[in-house]
């Protein structure tokens, strides 16, 4: 349904944009109908940038995003609005997603005035109540309140309800539960899983491996803007092939294990000598001189890895 082709995002920094920062480097993947794909990576890996580009909130430097076969860069004005009828997003910080000086349910009003101006207040009210019910919110407790009077979980669920008011087919969920506490987390995750059954596709952006595993059909491991490993979630998590994925999995705290010293290799000096090398070169314990920049290699059906030595180490 939505397809990314060699997406690259380069930020220009400094005076006259002399310094370049490649936030996303040649990333390609596609998301089918009713699929949840998790995009997993550490801070600065470019996962949020990818989400924002898919929502057309920031321009793409190179590459193409296709939505139902049509190029996203051609969507402007009314066409772009139609795109947002089908593609929606929920962001990381629920408190900053609401304008603090207005009541929280204003987000529903805005959707009505932009997309459904022809509906009467009563008809719309029914839609809103339906949407709130499907995210498990009691309308009495959340309507007519200011954002600061509601909890993060309630606000985040309201944002999901907002997306449901439209004919949303694809949802970008950018770290939507990282600011919620553990008890509400699982509720929100289950709502997403429930919505998936109804045919909604979700890009689930997270830095938390266990959340990615819990919910997604496919996983993409991102490091410094490049895909390190991608494939069916079960395959990526049961037989991790890339040294980075393995390191990440080893770093996950387990509920049945006490703390032990575990060293995470740090990035050594970065400079011109890493250009053209594998992105993970300077942290990889298995790196050799031949570790050049590596595209994805197909290992088996639904499992790709960006390491040329995947089968001999």
């Amino acid at each position, binding site marked *: 349904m939505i397809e990314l082709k060699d997406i690259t995002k380069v930020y220009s920094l400094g005076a006259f944009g002399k310094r370049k920062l490649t936030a996303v480097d040649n990333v390609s993947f596609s998301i089918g109908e009713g699929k949840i794909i998790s995009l997993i990576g550490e801070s600065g890996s470019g996962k949020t940038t990818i989400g924002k580009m898919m929502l057309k*909130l920031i321009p793409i430097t190179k590459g193409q995003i296709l939505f139902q076969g049509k190029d996203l860069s051609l969507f402007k004005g009314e066409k772009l609005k139609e795109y947002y009828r089908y593609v929606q*997003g929920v*962001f*990381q910080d629920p408190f*900053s997603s609401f*304008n603090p*000086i207005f009541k929280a349910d204003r987000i529903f009003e805005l959707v009505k005035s932009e997309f459904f101006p022809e509906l009467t207040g009563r008809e719309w009210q029914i839609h809103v109540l339906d949407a709130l019910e499907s995210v498990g919110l009691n309308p009495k407790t959340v309507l007519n309140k200011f954002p600061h009077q509601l909890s993060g979980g309630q606000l985040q669920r309201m944002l999901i309800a907002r997306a449901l008011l439209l004919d949303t087919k694809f949802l970008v969920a950018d770290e939507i539960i990282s600011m919620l506490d553990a008890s509400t987390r699982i509720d929100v995750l289950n709502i997403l899983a429930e919505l998936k059954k109804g045919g909604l596709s979700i890009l689930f952006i997270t830095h938390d491996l266990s959340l990615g595993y819990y919910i997604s059909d496919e996983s993409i491991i991102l490091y410094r803007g490049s895909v390190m490993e991608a494939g069916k979630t079960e395959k990526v998590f049961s037989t991790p092939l890339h040294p980075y994925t393995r390191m990440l999995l080893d770093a996950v705290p387990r509920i049945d294990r006490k703390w032990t010293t575990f060293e995470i290799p740090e990035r050594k000096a970065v400079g011109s000598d890493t250009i053209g090398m594998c992105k993970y070169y300077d942290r990889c314990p298995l790196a050799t001189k031949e570790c050049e920049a590596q595209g994805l290699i197909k290992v088996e059906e639904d499992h790709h890895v960006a390491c040329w030595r995947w089968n001999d180490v």
Partner: protein
Amino acid sequence: MKFRKSEILFFALRNTKLRIGVFIVALFAFLAIFGPYFAKYEPQDFAGPGYNPPSGEYWLGTTTFGRDVFSQFVYGLRSTFLVGFVGGSIATFIGLFVGFLSGYKGGLADELLMMFTNIVLVIPTMALLIILAAYLKYRGVFLESVFIGFTAWPWTARAVRSQTLSLKTREFVNLARITGMKPLKIIVVEILPNMLSYVFMVFILQFGGAILTAATLDFIGLGPTQGISLGLMMQQAVLWNAIQLGMWWWAVPPGIAITAIVGAMYFMNTGLDEVFNPKLREM
């Protein structure tokens, strides 16, 4: 909203600085609006003998030429408020427009607009106004306020731009964008309401600033060729040695009025700052 509004009103009514400021400005505004109805003469009429100290007939005395100072004073107040209102509104409006556009759009639009703003900012305003005023044969109070408005906006634009830059990174702006709202609408319904208190204060400062600039222009003889203003009164008083001749009633009232109005405006500004910003409130 109800809670917040009443909270702001509560602190506004309690704030002494704001109360003093509003009282003084309201007093002079009242004089400016209703004073001319009580004035017995036109400001430029020869009302009677010159050098008359304040009396029952001439409330603020007369000038060297026998003009009624009270009439001049209340009509002058009117034009002072007109300059403040028109000049302040224009400066605030242009400043908001450029600031919002520049901050929200970013990129090339931002570069160009800020370049333009900086150019206007470094042009010595007073020199420009002097040249403009010197070229025009007939100058009215309204035209003067327009000139002042068109030269006073840059700092507002810069301040609004930086606030917009910080507000537009908040997620609710992104949410508005994926609701398909157009940039102008986002600025007006999402960003502006968050800055309303600031915009209000900017207007007050621009109001006071325009009054001061107008008074300066009038005083150096580049004020309106028709009509009367407080600055013009002061200029004439100085020109005809009012102080040296002991005619304090001619020279002092316009000076006091301008100082009091502008001072009260700044009082209101600091008072409002405390009302809108809870950290500055005295408990």
